[in-house]
Protein backbone atom coordinates (compact mmCIF):
# COMPACT_ATOMS: atom_id res chain seq x y z
CA UNK A 1 0.00 0.00 0.00
CA UNK A 2 1.24 3.38 -0.90
CA UNK A 3 2.54 5.72 1.81
CA UNK A 4 0.67 9.00 1.45
CA UNK A 5 2.75 11.98 2.53
CA UNK A 6 1.39 15.52 2.62
CA UNK A 7 3.86 18.39 3.04
CA UNK A 8 2.50 21.73 4.29
CA UNK A 9 4.40 24.58 2.71
CA UNK A 10 3.91 28.30 3.08
CA UNK A 11 4.44 31.08 0.59
CA UNK A 12 6.05 33.96 2.48
CA UNK A 13 7.44 37.44 1.81
CA UNK A 14 11.21 37.30 1.32
CA UNK A 15 12.81 37.95 4.71
CA UNK A 16 15.63 39.95 3.14
CA UNK A 17 13.07 42.39 1.68
CA UNK A 18 11.56 45.36 3.47
CA UNK A 19 8.57 43.63 5.08
CA UNK A 20 5.58 45.70 6.13
CA UNK A 21 2.03 45.64 7.39
CA UNK A 22 -0.88 46.53 5.14
CA UNK A 23 -3.44 49.11 6.27
CA UNK A 24 -5.66 46.44 7.83
CA UNK A 25 -2.63 45.32 9.90
CA UNK A 26 -2.24 42.05 8.03
CA UNK A 27 1.13 41.09 6.51
CA UNK A 28 1.63 43.09 3.32
CA UNK A 29 2.06 40.42 0.67
CA UNK A 30 2.33 42.89 -2.21
CA UNK A 31 5.30 45.03 -1.18
CA UNK A 32 7.88 42.25 -1.08
CA UNK A 33 8.42 39.31 -3.43
CA UNK A 34 7.23 35.98 -2.12
CA UNK A 35 8.85 32.57 -2.11
CA UNK A 36 8.58 29.08 -0.66
CA UNK A 37 9.55 29.53 3.00
CA UNK A 38 13.16 28.33 3.27
CA UNK A 39 12.28 26.39 6.38
CA UNK A 40 9.64 24.44 4.45
CA UNK A 41 12.25 23.35 1.90
CA UNK A 42 13.62 21.16 4.68
CA UNK A 43 10.16 19.60 5.06
CA UNK A 44 9.95 18.87 1.33
CA UNK A 45 13.45 17.38 1.43
CA UNK A 46 12.67 15.02 4.31
CA UNK A 47 9.37 14.01 2.71
CA UNK A 48 11.18 13.11 -0.50
CA UNK A 49 13.80 11.11 1.40
CA UNK A 50 11.11 9.22 3.32
CA UNK A 51 9.32 8.53 0.04
CA UNK A 52 12.55 7.28 -1.57
CA UNK A 53 13.11 4.89 1.31
CA UNK A 54 9.56 3.50 1.06
CA UNK A 55 8.55 0.87 -1.49
CA UNK A 56 5.74 2.96 -2.77
CA UNK A 57 4.93 6.50 -1.76
CA UNK A 58 3.25 9.62 -3.01
CA UNK A 59 4.23 13.14 -1.92
CA UNK A 60 1.59 15.88 -2.13
CA UNK A 61 2.52 19.46 -1.31
CA UNK A 62 -0.22 21.60 0.17
CA UNK A 63 -0.48 25.33 0.67
CA UNK A 64 -3.12 27.75 1.90
CA UNK A 65 -2.45 31.11 0.37
CA UNK A 66 -3.07 33.71 -2.33
CA UNK A 67 -2.80 33.07 -6.05
CA UNK A 68 0.98 33.64 -6.13
CA UNK A 69 1.41 30.85 -3.60
CA UNK A 70 1.40 28.56 -6.65
CA UNK A 71 5.06 29.55 -7.03
CA UNK A 72 5.84 27.80 -3.77
CA UNK A 73 4.04 24.67 -4.96
CA UNK A 74 5.90 24.76 -8.30
CA UNK A 75 9.23 24.93 -6.51
CA UNK A 76 8.31 21.95 -4.33
CA UNK A 77 7.12 20.04 -7.40
CA UNK A 78 10.38 20.80 -9.18
CA UNK A 79 12.27 19.43 -6.18
CA UNK A 80 10.41 16.17 -6.80
CA UNK A 81 6.99 16.17 -5.12
CA UNK A 82 4.34 14.29 -7.10
CA UNK A 83 1.35 16.61 -6.93
CA UNK A 84 0.08 19.76 -5.32
CA UNK A 85 -3.03 21.13 -3.65
CA UNK A 86 -3.66 24.86 -3.43
CA UNK A 87 -6.38 26.16 -1.14
CA UNK A 88 -7.25 29.59 -2.41
CA UNK A 89 -10.24 31.74 -1.53
CA UNK A 90 -10.71 35.52 -1.25
CA UNK A 91 -12.35 34.99 2.14
CA UNK A 92 -9.01 33.69 3.51
CA UNK A 93 -7.37 37.13 3.64
CA UNK A 94 -6.33 37.87 7.23
CA UNK A 95 -6.83 34.33 8.58
CA UNK A 96 -4.88 33.62 11.78
CA UNK A 97 -3.21 30.37 12.83
CA UNK A 98 -6.43 28.88 14.19
CA UNK A 99 -8.21 29.43 10.88
CA UNK A 100 -5.25 28.32 8.76
CA UNK A 101 -4.91 25.13 10.76
CA UNK A 102 -8.62 24.42 10.32
CA UNK A 103 -8.30 24.76 6.54
CA UNK A 104 -5.12 22.68 6.43
CA UNK A 105 -6.71 19.96 8.56
CA UNK A 106 -9.70 19.69 6.22
CA UNK A 107 -7.48 19.75 3.14
CA UNK A 108 -5.17 17.07 4.56
CA UNK A 109 -8.16 14.85 5.32
CA UNK A 110 -9.61 15.50 1.88
CA UNK A 111 -6.29 14.54 0.25
CA UNK A 112 -5.82 11.45 2.38
CA UNK A 113 -2.63 10.96 4.39
CA UNK A 114 -0.45 8.66 6.47
CA UNK A 115 2.14 11.31 7.29
CA UNK A 116 2.00 15.12 7.34
CA UNK A 117 5.38 16.89 7.20
CA UNK A 118 5.72 20.55 8.21
CA UNK A 119 8.57 23.01 8.59
CA UNK A 120 9.65 24.13 12.06
CA UNK A 121 8.15 27.61 11.64
CA UNK A 122 7.08 29.99 8.92
CA UNK A 123 9.63 32.71 8.23
CA UNK A 124 6.99 35.46 8.34
CA UNK A 125 4.74 34.53 11.27
CA UNK A 126 7.51 32.57 13.04
CA UNK A 127 5.02 31.05 15.46
CA UNK A 128 6.14 27.45 15.13
CA UNK A 129 2.86 26.18 16.54
CA UNK A 130 0.93 25.09 13.50
CA UNK A 131 2.20 21.48 13.41
CA UNK A 132 1.07 20.90 17.02
CA UNK A 133 -2.31 22.51 16.31
CA UNK A 134 -2.72 20.42 13.18
CA UNK A 135 -1.99 17.23 15.12
CA UNK A 136 -4.53 18.25 17.74
CA UNK A 137 -7.17 18.96 15.10
CA UNK A 138 -6.49 15.72 13.22
CA UNK A 139 -6.39 13.72 16.45
CA UNK A 140 -3.04 12.12 15.59
CA UNK A 141 0.37 12.09 17.33
CA UNK A 142 2.83 14.94 16.81
CA UNK A 143 6.50 14.14 16.36
CA UNK A 144 7.87 17.62 16.05
CA UNK A 145 11.07 19.67 15.76
CA UNK A 146 13.07 16.73 14.48
CA UNK A 147 16.63 16.96 13.29
CA UNK A 148 16.42 13.35 12.08
CA UNK A 149 13.37 11.44 10.89
CA UNK A 150 12.58 8.01 9.45
CA UNK A 151 9.50 5.94 8.68
CA UNK A 152 9.38 2.15 8.87
CA UNK A 153 6.84 -0.53 9.76
CA UNK A 154 3.97 1.92 10.17
CA UNK A 155 5.95 4.02 12.64
CA UNK A 156 7.70 7.34 12.50
CA UNK A 157 10.82 7.84 14.59
CA UNK A 158 13.02 10.85 15.03
CA UNK A 159 15.42 12.85 17.13
CA UNK A 160 14.35 16.04 18.86
CA UNK A 161 17.24 18.18 20.11
CA UNK A 162 15.90 20.21 22.99
CA UNK A 163 17.61 22.57 25.38
CA UNK A 164 17.78 20.20 28.29
CA UNK A 165 18.09 16.93 26.41
CA UNK A 166 18.15 15.21 23.08
CA UNK A 167 15.17 12.85 22.78
CA UNK A 168 14.45 9.86 20.59
CA UNK A 169 10.73 9.84 19.70
CA UNK A 170 8.37 7.29 18.22
CA UNK A 171 4.73 7.27 17.11
CA UNK A 172 2.42 5.18 14.97
CA UNK A 173 1.13 6.49 11.66
CA UNK A 174 -0.84 8.51 10.84
CA UNK A 175 1.11 11.36 12.43
CA UNK A 176 2.21 14.96 11.98
CA UNK A 177 5.93 15.70 12.02
CA UNK A 178 7.91 18.91 11.75
CA UNK A 179 11.58 19.09 10.85
CA UNK A 180 14.21 21.69 11.70
CA UNK A 181 16.89 23.27 9.56
CA UNK A 182 19.29 20.78 11.16
CA UNK A 183 17.63 17.91 9.29
CA UNK A 184 19.85 18.27 6.22
CA UNK A 185 20.21 20.68 3.30
CA UNK A 186 17.36 20.74 0.81
CA UNK A 187 18.13 19.70 -2.76
CA UNK A 188 18.13 22.22 -5.60
CA UNK A 189 15.60 21.57 -8.34
CA UNK A 190 17.37 20.08 -11.37
CA UNK A 191 16.59 21.25 -14.90
CA UNK A 192 14.80 17.96 -15.45
CA UNK A 193 12.85 18.50 -12.24
CA UNK A 194 11.79 21.97 -13.33
CA UNK A 195 10.59 20.68 -16.69
CA UNK A 196 8.77 17.73 -15.12
CA UNK A 197 7.05 20.03 -12.60
CA UNK A 198 5.30 21.87 -15.42
CA UNK A 199 3.34 18.74 -16.19
CA UNK A 200 2.42 17.89 -12.63
CA UNK A 201 -1.06 18.47 -11.34
CA UNK A 202 -1.96 21.43 -9.09
CA UNK A 203 -5.42 20.94 -7.70
CA UNK A 204 -7.22 24.09 -6.61
CA UNK A 205 -9.73 24.01 -3.77
CA UNK A 206 -11.84 26.74 -2.21
CA UNK A 207 -13.60 26.91 1.14
CA UNK A 208 -16.83 25.42 -0.13
CA UNK A 209 -14.92 22.39 -1.49
CA UNK A 210 -13.73 21.82 2.06
CA UNK A 211 -17.08 22.54 3.70
CA UNK A 212 -15.72 25.50 5.67
CA UNK A 213 -17.85 28.55 6.47
CA UNK A 214 -16.45 31.93 5.51
CA UNK A 215 -17.15 33.16 9.05
CA UNK A 216 -14.61 30.68 10.44
CA UNK A 217 -11.69 32.30 8.61
CA UNK A 218 -10.46 35.67 7.39
CA UNK A 219 -9.80 38.77 9.42
CA UNK A 220 -13.31 38.76 10.91
CA UNK A 221 -13.08 35.09 11.87
CA UNK A 222 -9.66 35.43 13.50
CA UNK A 223 -9.40 34.72 17.24
CA UNK A 224 -6.63 37.25 17.68
CA UNK A 225 -6.60 40.91 16.84
CA UNK A 226 -3.61 43.08 15.98
CA UNK A 227 -4.41 46.52 17.33
CA UNK A 228 -1.21 48.39 16.54
CA UNK A 229 1.90 47.84 14.45
CA UNK A 230 4.70 50.35 14.54
CA UNK A 231 8.16 50.28 13.01
CA UNK A 232 10.78 49.90 15.68
CA UNK A 233 12.42 53.25 16.29
CA UNK A 234 15.80 53.22 14.54
CA UNK A 235 18.67 52.62 16.93
CA UNK A 236 20.57 55.79 17.62
CA UNK A 237 23.80 55.66 15.71
CA UNK A 238 26.54 54.14 17.83
CA UNK A 239 30.17 55.01 18.21
CA UNK A 240 32.46 53.18 15.83
CA UNK A 241 36.21 53.16 16.29
CA UNK A 242 38.91 51.58 14.19
CA UNK A 243 41.39 49.47 16.09
CA UNK A 244 44.89 50.83 15.86
CA UNK A 245 46.13 49.02 18.93
CA UNK A 246 43.78 50.80 21.33
CA UNK A 247 40.48 49.18 20.25
CA UNK A 248 40.23 46.76 23.15
CA UNK A 249 41.03 49.46 25.70
CA UNK A 250 38.44 51.83 24.18
CA UNK A 251 35.81 49.11 24.21
CA UNK A 252 36.63 48.23 27.82
CA UNK A 253 36.21 51.88 28.77
CA UNK A 254 32.83 51.97 27.08
CA UNK A 255 31.73 48.78 28.86
CA UNK A 256 32.95 50.16 32.19
CA UNK A 257 31.08 53.42 31.62
CA UNK A 258 27.92 51.38 30.94
CA UNK A 259 28.61 49.48 34.20
CA UNK A 260 29.06 46.09 32.53
CA UNK A 261 32.48 45.77 34.14
Amino acid at each position, binding site marked *: MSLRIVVCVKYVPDATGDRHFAEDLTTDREAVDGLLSELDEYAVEQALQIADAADDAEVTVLTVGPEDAKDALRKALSMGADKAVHVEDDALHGTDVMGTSLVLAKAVEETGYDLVVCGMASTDGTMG*VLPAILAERLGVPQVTLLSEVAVADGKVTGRRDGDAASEQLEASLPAVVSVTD*QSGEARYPSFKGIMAAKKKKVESLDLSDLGIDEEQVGLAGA*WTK*VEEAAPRPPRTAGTIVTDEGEGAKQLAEYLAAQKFI
Partner: protein
Amino acid sequence: MGEVLVYVDHVDGAVRKPTLELLTLARRIGEPVAVFLGPGAEGAAAALAEYGAVKVLAADAPEFAEYLVVPKVDALEQAAKAVEPVAVLVPSSAEGKEIAARLAVRLGSGIITDAVDLEAGAEGPVATQSVFAAAFTTKSRVSHGTPVITVKPNSAAPEAAPAAGTVEQLSVSFSEAATGTKVVSRSPRESTGRPELTEAAIVVSGGRGVNGAENFSIIENLADSLGAAVGASRAAVDAGWYPHTNQVGQTGKSVSPQLYVAAGISGAIQHRAGMQTSKTIVAVNKDPEAPIFDLVDYGVVGDLFEVVPALTEEIKARKG
Protein backbone atom coordinates in the same frame (compact mmCIF):
# COMPACT_ATOMS: atom_id res chain seq x y z
CA MET B 1 -9.63 40.22 39.55
CA GLY B 2 -9.68 36.76 38.01
CA GLU B 3 -7.02 34.11 38.21
CA VAL B 4 -4.24 33.68 35.67
CA LEU B 5 -2.80 30.22 35.07
CA VAL B 6 0.97 30.22 34.83
CA TYR B 7 2.67 27.10 33.49
CA VAL B 8 5.83 26.41 35.49
CA ASP B 9 9.00 25.60 33.56
CA HIS B 10 11.42 23.77 35.84
CA VAL B 11 14.34 21.38 35.82
CA ASP B 12 13.78 18.65 38.45
CA GLY B 13 11.87 21.06 40.66
CA ALA B 14 14.20 24.04 40.24
CA VAL B 15 11.99 26.81 38.85
CA ARG B 16 13.54 28.55 35.85
CA LYS B 17 13.76 32.31 35.71
CA PRO B 18 11.26 32.81 32.84
CA THR B 19 8.53 31.42 35.10
CA LEU B 20 9.28 34.09 37.72
CA GLU B 21 8.99 36.68 34.94
CA LEU B 22 5.63 35.20 33.97
CA LEU B 23 4.37 35.38 37.55
CA THR B 24 5.43 39.04 37.63
CA LEU B 25 3.58 39.79 34.37
CA ALA B 26 0.56 37.72 35.43
CA ARG B 27 0.01 40.01 38.42
CA ARG B 28 -0.74 42.86 36.04
CA ILE B 29 -3.81 41.03 34.76
CA GLY B 30 -4.95 38.92 37.72
CA GLU B 31 -3.95 36.56 40.51
CA PRO B 32 -1.32 34.03 39.46
CA VAL B 33 -2.10 30.35 39.96
CA ALA B 34 0.92 28.21 39.10
CA VAL B 35 0.56 24.82 37.43
CA PHE B 36 3.46 22.55 38.34
CA LEU B 37 3.83 19.20 36.56
CA GLY B 38 6.36 16.54 37.50
CA PRO B 39 8.22 15.79 40.72
CA GLY B 40 9.30 18.47 43.20
CA ALA B 41 6.25 20.73 43.64
CA GLU B 42 6.68 21.04 47.42
CA GLY B 43 10.23 22.29 47.00
CA ALA B 44 9.33 24.67 44.18
CA ALA B 45 6.32 26.15 45.99
CA ALA B 46 8.40 28.57 48.08
CA ALA B 47 9.90 30.27 45.02
CA LEU B 48 6.52 30.37 43.27
CA ALA B 49 4.87 31.87 46.37
CA GLU B 50 7.61 34.47 46.71
CA TYR B 51 6.86 35.75 43.20
CA GLY B 52 3.13 35.92 43.75
CA ALA B 53 1.51 32.53 43.17
CA VAL B 54 -1.61 32.41 45.33
CA LYS B 55 -1.92 28.71 44.64
CA VAL B 56 0.18 25.94 43.13
CA LEU B 57 -1.76 23.23 41.32
CA ALA B 58 0.54 20.23 41.26
CA ALA B 59 0.41 16.90 39.50
CA ASP B 60 3.02 14.21 39.04
CA ALA B 61 2.80 11.16 36.81
CA PRO B 62 5.28 9.14 34.74
CA GLU B 63 3.37 10.13 31.57
CA PHE B 64 4.77 13.68 31.76
CA ALA B 65 8.27 12.43 31.06
CA GLU B 66 7.49 9.35 28.98
CA TYR B 67 5.34 10.96 26.29
CA LEU B 68 5.67 14.16 24.30
CA VAL B 69 3.66 17.32 25.12
CA VAL B 70 0.10 15.92 25.22
CA PRO B 71 0.02 14.69 28.87
CA LYS B 72 0.94 18.23 29.91
CA VAL B 73 -1.82 19.62 27.70
CA ASP B 74 -4.30 17.28 29.41
CA ALA B 75 -3.21 18.58 32.82
CA LEU B 76 -3.34 22.22 31.83
CA GLU B 77 -6.73 21.76 30.19
CA GLN B 78 -8.10 20.23 33.38
CA ALA B 79 -6.55 23.02 35.46
CA ALA B 80 -8.19 25.57 33.16
CA LYS B 81 -11.57 23.86 33.50
CA ALA B 82 -11.24 23.92 37.30
CA VAL B 83 -10.02 27.51 37.64
CA GLU B 84 -11.75 29.28 34.72
CA PRO B 85 -8.81 31.67 34.42
CA VAL B 86 -8.84 35.06 32.67
CA ALA B 87 -5.69 34.02 30.79
CA VAL B 88 -3.12 31.24 30.53
CA LEU B 89 0.57 32.17 30.34
CA VAL B 90 3.24 29.74 29.17
CA PRO B 91 6.99 30.32 28.70
CA SER B 92 7.97 30.58 25.01
CA SER B 93 10.21 27.52 24.92
CA ALA B 94 9.86 25.01 22.08
CA GLU B 95 7.82 22.74 24.31
CA GLY B 96 5.92 25.61 25.95
CA LYS B 97 4.69 26.88 22.60
CA GLU B 98 3.45 23.43 21.57
CA ILE B 99 1.65 22.92 24.88
CA ALA B 100 0.00 26.32 24.52
CA ALA B 101 -0.95 25.59 20.92
CA ARG B 102 -2.84 22.38 21.65
CA LEU B 103 -4.38 23.88 24.77
CA ALA B 104 -5.75 26.79 22.73
CA VAL B 105 -7.48 24.39 20.33
CA ARG B 106 -9.08 22.54 23.23
CA LEU B 107 -10.24 25.71 24.95
CA GLY B 108 -11.52 27.19 21.70
CA SER B 109 -9.17 30.11 22.22
CA GLY B 110 -6.97 32.33 20.14
CA ILE B 111 -3.23 32.12 20.79
CA ILE B 112 -0.45 34.71 20.82
CA THR B 113 3.15 33.49 20.82
CA ASP B 114 6.45 35.15 21.79
CA ALA B 115 5.05 38.15 23.65
CA VAL B 116 7.77 40.47 24.97
CA ASP B 117 5.43 42.44 27.23
CA LEU B 118 1.94 42.18 28.64
CA GLU B 119 -0.51 44.72 30.04
CA ALA B 120 -4.10 44.70 31.21
CA GLY B 121 -6.50 46.14 28.62
CA ALA B 122 -10.19 46.99 28.55
CA GLU B 123 -10.90 43.90 26.45
CA GLY B 124 -8.38 41.56 28.05
CA PRO B 125 -4.59 41.32 28.17
CA VAL B 126 -2.67 43.17 25.48
CA ALA B 127 0.54 41.50 24.30
CA THR B 128 3.48 43.28 22.74
CA GLN B 129 5.37 41.32 20.07
CA SER B 130 8.46 42.05 18.08
CA VAL B 131 7.97 40.90 14.47
CA PHE B 132 9.64 40.78 11.05
CA ALA B 133 13.06 40.24 12.61
CA ALA B 134 12.24 42.92 15.20
CA ALA B 135 11.66 45.59 12.56
CA PHE B 136 8.12 46.12 13.90
CA THR B 137 6.49 46.16 17.31
CA THR B 138 2.85 45.08 17.49
CA LYS B 139 0.18 45.08 20.15
CA SER B 140 -2.38 42.31 19.94
CA ARG B 141 -5.02 40.59 21.98
CA VAL B 142 -6.93 37.36 21.90
CA SER B 143 -10.48 38.14 20.81
CA HIS B 144 -12.05 34.71 21.29
CA GLY B 145 -11.96 32.39 24.29
CA THR B 146 -9.54 32.40 27.22
CA PRO B 147 -6.38 34.17 26.05
CA VAL B 148 -3.47 31.74 25.73
CA ILE B 149 -0.20 33.66 25.52
CA THR B 150 3.41 32.48 25.41
CA VAL B 151 6.00 34.92 26.71
CA LYS B 152 9.68 35.13 25.76
CA PRO B 153 12.40 34.96 28.39
CA ASN B 154 13.78 38.30 29.61
CA SER B 155 10.46 40.08 28.97
CA ALA B 156 10.21 41.42 32.53
CA ALA B 157 12.42 41.73 35.57
CA PRO B 158 11.13 39.26 38.18
CA GLU B 159 9.73 41.15 41.19
CA ALA B 160 9.00 39.41 44.48
CA ALA B 161 5.46 39.83 45.86
CA PRO B 162 4.93 37.13 48.47
CA ALA B 163 1.60 35.27 48.34
CA ALA B 164 0.25 32.11 49.93
CA GLY B 165 1.40 29.62 47.29
CA THR B 166 -0.67 26.83 48.82
CA VAL B 167 0.01 23.54 47.07
CA GLU B 168 -3.11 21.71 45.92
CA GLN B 169 -3.10 18.39 44.11
CA LEU B 170 -4.48 18.50 40.61
CA SER B 171 -5.88 15.14 39.60
CA VAL B 172 -5.34 14.51 35.92
CA SER B 173 -7.05 11.90 33.78
CA PHE B 174 -5.08 11.36 30.62
CA SER B 175 -6.69 11.42 27.19
CA GLU B 176 -6.23 8.65 24.68
CA ALA B 177 -3.93 10.96 22.72
CA ALA B 178 -1.62 11.36 25.73
CA THR B 179 0.43 8.27 24.93
CA GLY B 180 0.63 8.94 21.19
CA THR B 181 4.26 9.98 20.99
CA LYS B 182 6.66 7.97 23.10
CA VAL B 183 9.94 9.38 24.36
CA VAL B 184 12.03 6.27 23.76
CA SER B 185 15.21 7.67 25.23
CA ARG B 186 16.60 10.91 26.50
CA SER B 187 20.19 12.06 26.74
CA PRO B 188 20.49 15.13 28.93
CA ARG B 189 22.85 17.85 27.86
CA GLU B 190 25.96 18.39 29.87
CA SER B 191 25.99 21.65 31.74
CA THR B 192 28.73 24.08 30.71
CA GLY B 193 28.51 25.97 33.99
CA ARG B 194 27.75 29.13 32.02
CA PRO B 195 24.43 30.98 32.24
CA GLU B 196 21.52 29.79 30.11
CA LEU B 197 21.65 31.56 26.73
CA THR B 198 18.08 32.90 26.73
CA GLU B 199 18.25 33.98 30.37
CA ALA B 200 21.71 35.53 30.48
CA ALA B 201 22.22 39.23 31.18
CA ILE B 202 25.23 39.22 28.84
CA VAL B 203 25.77 37.14 25.69
CA VAL B 204 29.04 36.94 23.74
CA SER B 205 28.64 35.40 20.28
CA GLY B 206 31.09 34.31 17.63
CA GLY B 207 30.55 33.86 13.90
CA ARG B 208 32.34 32.73 10.79
CA GLY B 209 35.12 35.18 11.58
CA VAL B 210 36.16 32.96 14.51
CA ASN B 211 37.42 30.59 11.85
CA GLY B 212 37.56 27.21 13.58
CA ALA B 213 36.24 25.27 16.57
CA GLU B 214 39.58 25.56 18.34
CA ASN B 215 39.34 29.37 18.24
CA PHE B 216 36.03 29.48 20.06
CA SER B 217 37.99 29.47 23.33
CA ILE B 218 38.68 33.15 22.54
CA ILE B 219 34.93 33.79 22.66
CA GLU B 220 34.48 31.60 25.75
CA ASN B 221 37.25 33.40 27.62
CA LEU B 222 35.66 36.78 26.97
CA ALA B 223 32.28 35.37 28.01
CA ASP B 224 33.74 34.01 31.25
CA SER B 225 35.39 37.32 32.09
CA LEU B 226 31.95 38.93 31.87
CA GLY B 227 29.96 36.06 33.41
CA ALA B 228 28.20 35.74 30.06
CA ALA B 229 26.57 33.00 28.00
CA VAL B 230 28.15 31.99 24.68
CA GLY B 231 26.25 32.29 21.40
CA ALA B 232 27.10 31.51 17.78
CA SER B 233 25.89 32.45 14.32
CA ARG B 234 24.47 29.79 12.06
CA ALA B 235 27.57 29.92 9.89
CA ALA B 236 29.66 28.92 12.92
CA VAL B 237 27.17 26.21 13.90
CA ASP B 238 26.88 24.80 10.37
CA ALA B 239 30.66 24.62 10.18
CA GLY B 240 30.55 22.43 13.28
CA TRP B 241 32.50 24.87 15.45
CA TYR B 242 29.86 25.25 18.13
CA PRO B 243 26.69 23.32 19.16
CA HIS B 244 23.35 24.18 17.61
CA THR B 245 21.85 24.77 21.07
CA ASN B 246 23.96 27.93 21.17
CA GLN B 247 22.78 29.33 17.85
CA VAL B 248 21.30 32.81 18.01
CA GLY B 249 18.77 33.86 15.40
CA GLN B 250 15.62 32.96 13.60
CA THR B 251 16.17 29.22 13.75
CA GLY B 252 18.14 29.30 16.97
CA LYS B 253 17.57 31.12 20.22
CA SER B 254 16.13 34.53 20.49
CA VAL B 255 18.00 36.53 23.11
CA SER B 256 17.35 39.92 24.63
CA PRO B 257 20.18 40.50 27.11
CA GLN B 258 21.41 43.74 28.66
CA LEU B 259 24.57 43.40 26.57
CA TYR B 260 25.17 41.48 23.32
CA VAL B 261 28.68 41.20 21.96
CA ALA B 262 29.04 39.98 18.34
CA ALA B 263 32.52 38.99 17.19
CA GLY B 264 33.13 38.03 13.56
CA ILE B 265 29.41 38.14 12.75
CA SER B 266 28.15 40.08 9.72
CA GLY B 267 24.62 40.70 11.02
CA ALA B 268 22.39 38.92 8.48
CA ILE B 269 18.65 39.49 8.89
CA GLN B 270 18.15 35.97 10.28
CA HIS B 271 20.79 36.59 12.92
CA ARG B 272 19.36 39.99 13.79
CA ALA B 273 15.95 38.37 14.27
CA GLY B 274 17.36 36.69 17.35
CA MET B 275 19.31 39.53 18.98
CA GLN B 276 18.05 42.89 17.73
CA THR B 277 16.07 43.61 20.90
CA SER B 278 19.20 43.40 23.09
CA LYS B 279 19.55 46.56 25.20
CA THR B 280 23.16 47.32 24.33
CA ILE B 281 24.91 45.88 21.27
CA VAL B 282 28.65 45.79 20.72
CA ALA B 283 30.50 44.33 17.73
CA VAL B 284 34.01 43.53 16.64
CA ASN B 285 34.36 43.00 12.89
CA LYS B 286 37.18 43.68 10.48
CA ASP B 287 34.81 44.84 7.74
CA PRO B 288 33.64 48.44 8.35
CA GLU B 289 30.74 47.81 5.93
CA ALA B 290 29.33 44.83 7.88
CA PRO B 291 25.59 45.36 8.51
CA ILE B 292 26.05 44.57 12.22
CA PHE B 293 27.52 48.07 12.59
CA ASP B 294 24.07 49.54 11.78
CA LEU B 295 22.85 48.07 15.06
CA VAL B 296 25.69 48.72 17.45
CA ASP B 297 25.97 51.10 20.35
CA TYR B 298 29.71 50.61 20.18
CA GLY B 299 31.65 48.99 17.38
CA VAL B 300 35.30 48.22 16.85
CA VAL B 301 36.53 47.77 13.30
CA GLY B 302 39.38 45.36 13.77
CA ASP B 303 40.68 41.82 13.87
CA LEU B 304 38.87 39.80 16.52
CA PHE B 305 42.02 37.75 17.14
CA GLU B 306 43.68 40.96 18.36
CA VAL B 307 40.76 42.79 19.95
CA VAL B 308 38.90 40.02 21.79
CA PRO B 309 41.83 38.53 23.77
CA ALA B 310 43.07 42.04 24.63
CA LEU B 311 39.57 42.98 25.79
CA THR B 312 39.42 39.87 27.97
CA GLU B 313 42.72 40.83 29.60
CA GLU B 314 41.57 44.41 30.06
CA ILE B 315 38.34 43.24 31.76
CA LYS B 316 40.19 40.83 34.02
CA ALA B 317 42.61 43.60 35.02
CA ARG B 318 39.77 46.01 35.77
CA LYS B 319 37.88 43.43 37.77
CA GLY B 320 41.07 42.72 39.69
